[in-house]
């Protein structure tokens, strides 16, 4: 069965302290991996699509990378406004299957 696992569950960072989040998956014939950001009390918001191993996407302080078995979301010099839960997802037919997320807290 397809599985999406995110680690760590929670990450507390000091402002400016770079770190990485992991999304590992067991999917046969991966047809994309997607990252979302979710703020407290809000719905998830789409960030990135990655389709092939070696691909990278960037947005402000976030960079997503993809290998054949996992994806990383790197947060460079984070700011308090980067505090959120970050979700990854893989396609299953018409649908997306989501990981449980990593909650990032950035302290000033």
């Amino acid at each position, binding site marked *: 069965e397809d599985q999406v696992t995110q680690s760590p569950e929670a990450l507390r960072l000091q402002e400016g302290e770079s770190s990485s989040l992991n999304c590992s998956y067991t999917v046969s014939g991966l047809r994309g991996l997607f990252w979302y950001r979710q703020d407290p009390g809000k719905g998830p918001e789409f960030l990135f699509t990655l389709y092939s191993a070696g691909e990278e996407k960037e947005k402000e302080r976030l960079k997503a990378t993809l290998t054949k078995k996992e994806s990383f979301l790197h947060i460079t010099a984070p700011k308090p406004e980067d505090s959120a839960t970050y979700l990854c997802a893989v396609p299953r037919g*018409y649908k997306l299957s*989501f990981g*449980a997320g990593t909650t990032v807290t950035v302290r000033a």
Partner: protein
Amino acid sequence: NAGVTQTPKFRVLKTGQSMTLLCAQDMNHEYMYWYRQDPGMGLRLIHYSVGEGTTAKGEVPDGYNVSRLKKQNFLLGLESAAPSQTSVYFCASSKTSGGASGELFFGEGSRLTVL
């Protein structure tokens, strides 16, 4: 720029009561989805629709029914609420198959408590 609107935002029910959650999107999207989000379990798909008049079961459909009579609306019904249905419910829509583009547009959620 309404996007995806869910009503109500909060609701408290007693066990056995029924209710309907309404999702409306103004982006002319074909695909619509209902997810529930529980702590530590992520988003789980309840039902989805690939176009007006169509519905299909997701991962956790038991205890829920849906209807998509109009393209812009997707209704989620609970016929006899149970405490296990206490959750935050999210509606989402996409222009093309979510499994292809990965880009879903989510509403802000409906928090349901069943006592």
